[in-house]
């Protein structure tokens, strides 16, 4: 046992050798070994080893540390000039390598820069508010039939309830109406502006700073405008005391506040009205059951001693306590959603935070790091591959009297120069690519050219990257003994290429993962797009802000437009087909399970709704003017019909709103929510009153622009000055894919760049290999090898590496993508061929890249390569 442990820890000894003066080595190692043996005899092996390490570290004393050979002190600028000049000469001599190094690095750095700007932009969202860390929105988890939904809306009396009974935890509390466009009238001019109504707690909570005037005191009809809005409304006139009309009420401007910061939650809040007024306008006090409808937002700021978790627990049942037993079944649980999470972690599943944008932030940050890493790998690989060539140079330099320290400086200045040039290119590239990226990512980012941080960062980055990438040649090559190299016995060794191969495998694995990922995102989008929507989305135009006058002229408008051929059909409806308006849980039928608590989406429309959107009737019939009884008829979607639990639902009776409705038909599910979300059970009612939207089915035989113009001409006169704005439903539908499509495009670009960088690297390596084996190829040719044999010979190594990469990448990509897809209810199944195809694709690109040099090398006349010896 003693024998086994008699050898002191090798790593420690190795460490000692790295810094110890050469002439001390023998005695010190001897002494430490003796000490170690002494310790072994007097204690446990562990203690002996520990003490050995300690002794090694305690040798870190000035006298014992090896000194770099001091160069005579004639450091001068001339010396550095010469370093950089020879570095430049080297680049010119090896144009291909220099190009690959610089372009690869430049692309890598540019990608990393753009991504870090994007990441910064996303994580700095909302941070402009000084109470960022302390603000929380009160939201609720609702349980219905075992499923938990998270709603950000709460009933309006909750604000007062929290203030009175749970106030100790909060410093400020404010109910807030939704940020919604309102039509504002000023001396007959009409404007559409978004804004909100809030309680006074809102002002200090969100840093509302006044430019003019004072915060409203008693009069509820005092309103505040943002600085930019006041400018638009009143120009240079004093806005204070001016009267504006909005939503049929008149308001008095009491103050002007500084616009909310861009890139923040309230950036499009252009006026602040008072909750007291809103409450009167919306007749909140007259609600028969104010604790039931969830239509408002509640924001709070924590008191100094409070924290989100304990405050969330305390307010949890604040709503539940106020509900009647039927509604209490839904067990609303209130909790606080902290401001830092609003933008980044706003997705909930089953009542738990599942993430949100933060996932994309992480994803792209990782991609950026990898792309940069791949560029650095190229740089390192090419310099190690060339090391044998450079070794001769080192030998000669040493022979004529170069110091090691000088050689180290030389290699470092060379790599720092390369990185520096690459960085400049990267800056230019970033500047050129930013507009494209901004358009794709819907951002507005600029390079902060005048910011010293940028230039400091560039300087630091070039030194750090340069030192990292140049450390191998600097330290390894400079240590070579000149005799060995010049005699020709120096070989990098068999294992020298192993780390290089590992790095290539890493590069191609990352590339393959990115390719597979991009393809999967694309497939998922296609899957969503190919989903049957249940209606014909093309050629539908919807106009919002329908007034009573338009409603009253419904028949005339319809007749005129159909007769002039602009449209085929039109309908008035409560929401466009791409959205929903409201839901109701108070729908009953005979035989309904009393424990069943289900929210039905409720739609209201005119008779022609079905014909306009062209839905598909599965059972029964559509609404029809021929049946006078249809005013008390409803149509269900498939999903809703399932809940009735009967095979034949047509003819059944639904009870809601204290009235009875006869089910006259069942339609195929109309996908109105997100393209990947399940369709909720929906009920369609006929409405005689005015509704918010009018939807038109354009005549396919007529140019779209003409039809829209004629719709405007017919409808606008009835709008009473309301702004006429229209949407194409297919465009709205397409916009729902925005997030995924953005990710898909960006991921595609980054994957492309990653592949490009990897190929650059392998291109450089193959040129090196071809050059190195030139003589071998010559001899083989002389002995009768043909082109294809040589091609296989030289490509084999690379192909093997790429195949390994494919094998490494597939399971990683599979796990990552499965995780990503669990976020979608309507998701694609990952096809097995995707992985194979991606691997084969990478392989094909590699073979093409490598072949360039291989074929060139294989075609050289052997006489040329062999004549020199």
């Amino acid at each position, binding site marked *: 046992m003693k024998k086994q442990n008699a050898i002191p820890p090798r790593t420690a000894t190795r460490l000692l050798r790295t810094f110890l003066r050469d002439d*001390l080595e023998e005695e*010190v190692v001897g*002494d430490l070994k003796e*000490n170690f043996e002494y310790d072994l005899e007097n204690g446990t092996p562990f203690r002996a080893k520990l003490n050995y390490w300690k002794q090694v570290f305690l*040798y870190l004393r000035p006298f014992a540390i090896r000194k770099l050979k001091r160069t005579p002190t004639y450091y001068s600028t001339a010396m550095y000039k010469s370093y950089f000049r020879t570095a430049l000469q080297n680049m010119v001599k090896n144009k291909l390598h220099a190009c690959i190094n610089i372009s690869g690095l430049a692309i890598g750095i540019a990608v990393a820069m753009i991504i870090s700007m994007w990441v910064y932009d996303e994580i700095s969202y909302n941070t402009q508010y000084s109470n960022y860390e302390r603000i929380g929105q009160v939201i609720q988890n609702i349980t219905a039939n075992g499923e938990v939904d998270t709603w950000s809306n709460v009933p309006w009396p909750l604000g007062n309830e929290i203030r009175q009974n749970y106030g100790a935890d909060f410093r400020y509390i404010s109910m807030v109406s939704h940020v919604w466009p309102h039509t504002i009238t000023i001396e007959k001019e009409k404007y559409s502006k978004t804004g909100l109504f809030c309680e006074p707690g809102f002002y200090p909570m969100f840093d509302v700073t006044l430019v003019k005037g004072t915060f409203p005191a008693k009069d509820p009809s005092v309103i505040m405008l943002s600085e930019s809005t006041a400018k638009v409304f009143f120009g240079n006139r004093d806005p204070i005391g001016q009267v504006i009309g909005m939503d049929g009420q008149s308001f008095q401007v009491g103050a002007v506040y500084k616009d909310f910061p861009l890139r923040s939650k309230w950036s499009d809040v252009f006026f602040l009205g008072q909750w007291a007024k809103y409450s009167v306008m919306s007749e909140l006090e007259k609600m028969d059951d104010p604790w039931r409808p969830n239509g408002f937002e509640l924001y709070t700021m924590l008191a100094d001693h409070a924290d989100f978790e304990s405050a969330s627990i305390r307010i949890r049942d604040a709503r539940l306590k106020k509900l009647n037993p039927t509604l209490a079944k839904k067990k609303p649980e209130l909790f606080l959603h902290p401001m830092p999470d609003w933008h980044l972690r706003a997705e909930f599943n089953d009542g738990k935070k599942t993430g949100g944008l933060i996932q994309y932030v992480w994803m792209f940050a990782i991609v950026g790091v990898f792309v940069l890493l791949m560029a650095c790998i190229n740089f390192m690989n090419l310099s190690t591959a060339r090391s044998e060539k450079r070794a001769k140079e080192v030998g000669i330099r040493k022979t004529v009297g170069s110091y090691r320290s000088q050689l180290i400086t030389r290699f470092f200045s060379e790599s720092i120069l390369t990185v520096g040039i690459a960085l400049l290119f990267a800056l230019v590239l970033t500047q050129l690519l930013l507009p494209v990226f901004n358009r794709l990512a819907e951002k507005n980012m600029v390079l902060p050219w005048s910011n010293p941080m940028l230039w400091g960062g560039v300087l630091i980055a070039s030194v750090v990257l340069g030192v990292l990438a140049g450390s191998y040649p600097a330290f390894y090559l400079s240590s070579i003994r000149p005799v060995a190299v010049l005699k020709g016995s120096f070989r990098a060794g068999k294992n020298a290429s192993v780390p290089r191969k590992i790095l290539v495998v890493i590069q191609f694995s990352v590339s393959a993962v990115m390719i597979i990922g991009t393809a999967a995102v694309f497939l998922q989008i296609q899957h969503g797009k190919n989903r049957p929507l249940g209606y014909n989305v093309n050629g539908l135009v919807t106009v919002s802000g329908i007034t009573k006058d338009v409603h009253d002229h419904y028949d005339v408008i319809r007749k005129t437009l159909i007769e002039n051929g602009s449209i085929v059909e039109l309908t008035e409806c409560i929401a466009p087909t791409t959205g929903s308006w409201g839901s109701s849980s108070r729908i009953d039928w005979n035989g309904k399970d009393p424990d069943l608590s289900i929210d039905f989406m409720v739609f209201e429309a005119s008779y022609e709704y079905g014909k306009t959107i062209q839905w598909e009737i599965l059972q029964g019939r559509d609404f029809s003017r021929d049946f006078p009884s249809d005013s008390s008829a409803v149509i269900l979607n498939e999903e809703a019909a399932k809940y009735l639990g009967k095979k034949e639902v047509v003819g059944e009776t639904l009870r809601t709103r204290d009235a009875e409705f006869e089910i006259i038909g069942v339609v195929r599910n109309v996908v109105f929510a997100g393209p990947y979300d399940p369709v909720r059970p929906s009920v369609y009612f006929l409405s005689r009153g005015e509704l918010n939207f009018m939807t038109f089915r354009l005549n396919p035989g007529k140019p779209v622009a003409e039809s829209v113009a004629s719709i405007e001409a017919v409808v606008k006169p009835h709008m009473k000055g309301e702004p006429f704005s229209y949407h194409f439903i297919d465009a709205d539908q397409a916009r729902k894919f925005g997030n995924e499509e953005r990710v898909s495009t960006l991921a595609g670009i980054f994957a492309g760049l990653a592949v490009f960088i990897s190929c650059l690297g392998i291109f450089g390596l193959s040129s090196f290999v071809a050059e190195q084996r030139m003589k071998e190829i010559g001899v083989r040719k002389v002995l009768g090898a043909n082109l294809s044999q040589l091609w296989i010979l030289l490509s084999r190594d690379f192909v093997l590496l790429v195949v390994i990469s494919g094998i490494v990448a597939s399971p990683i990509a599979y796990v990552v993508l499965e995780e990503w897809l669990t976020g979608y209810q309507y998701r694609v199944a990952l096809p097995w061929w995707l992985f194979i195809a991606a691997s084969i694709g990478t392989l094909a690109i590699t073979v093409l890249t490598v072949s360039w040099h291989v074929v060139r090398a294989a075609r050289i006349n052997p006489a040329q390569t062999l004549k020199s010896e």
Partner: protein
Amino acid sequence: MIETRLGDFEETVMLIVGILGEEEAYAFPISKAFEKRTGRAISIGAIHSTLDRLETKGFVRSALTSATSKRGDRRKRIFVITALGKRVLKESMEFKVQLWKEYPAFAGKLGFSE
């Protein structure tokens, strides 16, 4: 002036070198002897560094011995006190004795508060 050239620790190390003699006076046994006599732990590196300093000052000299199999065929550096070193040690001791003699309390009246 000579005293300032020899610190207390240096003096102790030199004395131990003298005690251990020509067979044993190298860094490892010196550190062990130091530990035994003072009860303080000391690293070999610290001893080595002091010896190195003493050698520069010319108080000790050193030579590598022939290899022994005990330490894996590595030679060890044996330190020997030089003539100058001996003189310095002696002077240091005499100087201190002189000081003690001049100290009035030395003759048994050790009362510091007086």
